[in-house]
């Protein structure tokens, strides 16, 4: 009992600290709105994946600092590359519109394009917050003896269609990056889809694949154990964690690619509710836990919300449309 009380006190205390921090910023008129029932916290991906882990971290931060008067209840809806989640949000009605938010990733752009039958228009979703942008690197096994992109290109050229690039689902981020590498360096790597980035990382560590384009969080364990090696990053600048790996930009290829980690609200969410969730997630973003996580996982990106987030989506959507057209997925 003692434990609970003491932690409750510290919880309240930290909420107070955050509360005072927040009151320094001008409050908008809609500050009065509060959720009237538990909030559906939809996760557009399966349990245990990158998006899921982040969603559960956000939920924990909300709970720990008492950021919401009603609990956030996570539900995973990974079906149809997120189609199920998008339809669920689109189909909310009445009070549910103000009580449904979703953690989303780049399938937010690609799934509606690849499945036009869904009739989902992402510009109708409420822009609550972009929490981070995940980065990508090109990875090989240490035993391959490959130390640079030049080595990689000659090895992959020699193996031709027998060079195996493991990645997540077809038409998703990993395949877009594989396609970029194939075109930029005249390669013919074979793309083999697996379920989830963790599984992809394991395929490389077990030498069942020749290369991958994992996020840092997925390869970190193997990298630290000295099993795998990053060759280059798909980022504008070198990543602190992998200082030896150049960017593709440095190597003369103007290619940068990120995975968004954002929170969106159901289409038709009221302005007051949207403002409420923006405040909640701005506080999550500012929390020590989130900042620490971003640093540890080599995540990019500042907090974006409102019109700026919407503009960002539309820009990213156009880029993805172009890429999907190039690989013949749409």
């Amino acid at each position: 009992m003692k434990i609970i009380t003491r932690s409750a006190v510290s919880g309240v205390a930290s909420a107070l600290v955050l509360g005072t921090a927040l009151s320094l910023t001008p409050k908008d008129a809609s500050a009065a709105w509060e959720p009237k029932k538990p909030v559906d916290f939809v996760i557009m991906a399966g349990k245990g994946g990158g998006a899921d882990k982040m969603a559960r971290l956000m939920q924990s931060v909300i709970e720990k600092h008492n950021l919401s008067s009603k609990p956030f209840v996570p539900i995973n809806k990974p079906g149809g590359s997120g189609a199920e989640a998008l339809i669920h949000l689109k189909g909310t009605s009445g009070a549910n519109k103000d009580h449904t938010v979703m953690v989303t990733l780049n399938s937010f752009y690609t799934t509606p394009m690849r499945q036009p039958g869904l009739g989902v228009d992402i510009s109708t979703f409420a822009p609550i917050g972009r929490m981070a942008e995940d980065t990508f690197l090109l990875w090989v096994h240490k035993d391959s003896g490959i130390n640079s992109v030049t080595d990689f290109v000659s090895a992959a050229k020699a193996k031709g269609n027998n060079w195996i690039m493991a990645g997540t689902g077809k038409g998703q981020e990993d395949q877009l990056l594989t396609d970029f590498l194939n075109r930029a360096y005249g390669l013919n790597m074979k793309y083999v889809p697996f379920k989830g980035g963790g599984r992809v990382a394991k395929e490389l560590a077990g030498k069942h694949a020749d290369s991958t384009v994992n996020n840092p969080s997925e390869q970190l364990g193997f990298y630290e154990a000295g099993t795998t090696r990053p060759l280059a990053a798909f980022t504008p600048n070198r990543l602190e964690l992998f200082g030896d790996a150049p960017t593709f930009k440095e190597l003369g290829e103007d290619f940068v690619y990120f995975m968004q980690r954002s929170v969106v609200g159901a289409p038709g969410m009221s302005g007051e509710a949207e403002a409420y969730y923006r405040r909640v997630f701005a506080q999550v973003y500012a929390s020590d836990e989130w900042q620490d996580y971003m640093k540890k996982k080599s995540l990019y990106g500042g907090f974006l919300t409102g019109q700026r987030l919407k503009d960002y989506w539309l820009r990213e959507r156009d880029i993805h449309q172009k890429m999907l057209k190039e690989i013949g997925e749409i």
Partner: protein
Amino acid sequence: MEIINLLADGFLIVFQPLYLAIIIGGVTLGLFIGAMPGLGSVNGVAILLPMTFLMEEQAPGSAIIFLAAIYYGAMYGGAISSIMLGIPGASTAVATTFDGRPLALKGLADQALVAAATASFIGGTISVLLFTGFAPPLAKVALSFGAPEEFALMMLAFATFIGLGGDDISKTFFSIFIGLVLSAVGLDIISGQPRLIFFDIPGFFHGVNFLVLAIGIYGIGEMLWTIESSRGDVQLSKATVSVRRIIDNIVRMKETTKAMVMGSFLGYFVGILPAAGATPGSLMAYGVAKTMSKDPDSFGKGNLIGVAAPEAANNAASTGSMLPMLTLGIPGSPTTAILLGGMVIWGLEPGPRLFIEEKEFVWGLIASLYAANLFALLVNIAFIPALIWVLRTPFTILAPSIFVLCVIGGYAPTQDMHDVWLMLLFGVVAYLLRKLDYPMAPAVLAIVLGPLAEASLRQSLIINHGSPMIFFERPISGPLIGIAILLFFMPLFKALKSRLTSSRAAQERS
């Protein structure tokens, strides 16, 4: 003996009163979560994860111990509703239903419950010992399993279900195909496109949840069957219980030693493979136990071994699936996937270096698994009298309660009414098929293993330019697939043999 020193240090942490209380609380909570249909260890761990934040601040390392205790408790608890109500309490306990339920209907529920608890304890203990002694080399085994090896293993699992005497082979195949078709609904993982979305109903996007089928068959279908066969008899189970009986039951477990040991090793091994988890492990253990048995016909009708083997396996697998999580950072089951997320939040980096850098954490966790096992056994046995009392409830009260639990169980995993309707439909269909003597266990096996088998088959074929030779050429998958093929043809050999002997007998007579 560095390991023994490290383990002793671990025990010193675990034997502090606060940690002991956390373990006992965790296994008891897990027991109830596991016993509730539709709520498995995944849900329990996911729901309680945010709570562990406060815990971790007070007592470092206690959060994962708490969650692991819940995981363990749920593995024990899953068997309870499988045996008592015929509804698998968790996906990992489906195989326990096959023989646990018939035993309960014969008035031997206490025997089945004791068997489940004892086997869980044996499975848990053997696997923790394996974990203690051989974690790093076993992690290497897990890494060496690629797509072709995984497919060969899946084929072996299917083969154990087909290659058994007794059941009508064509009906077994039919049942497997139903399961395979249902497992194909939803997302095609290779192309990333939705498929088999019947009537454009959005609920099919997430596929047919395995529990929806299992609860339909074993909950609703079984209930309809009981209503028909009981003919108005309201007192179904004449189970009694006494301390004497419980002790006798524990002594009787000697008969199942071989099955429990087999289940423990098999479950542990399947558990350490990424993506497999405890459900395939327990189903495979059931199949192997039936194949090994001298009396395979008694399976499905209340054979104690049919309870012991899968229960030993699912506990062993739950320990096993922690191995790739801790050493490789890859979860072996959905529950460990969430535990993995938790570790990251608490500031622990799972991966090959965890064993070196976080010795105290790792060995504290391992020591807590020994303790969790022991307490789960004691708590479970202590509850048996109360459970038997519940079972003596008249069927007129029990049936509506089972129905409500089924609906909750169908709804809870996805929170979608679509799954409840689907579950009711499966229940009615399963009841009709049962009247026609179709075995339903193979359909359950197929819906669990179908997606794994499909993905690994297609990945292997892509890697090898469409040639199936890849399965025969590799050192691990080759022998596995060879055994699978032999098992597939076993019914044919058996049929030939029996025809030969009968024709010879006919000749002798003439």
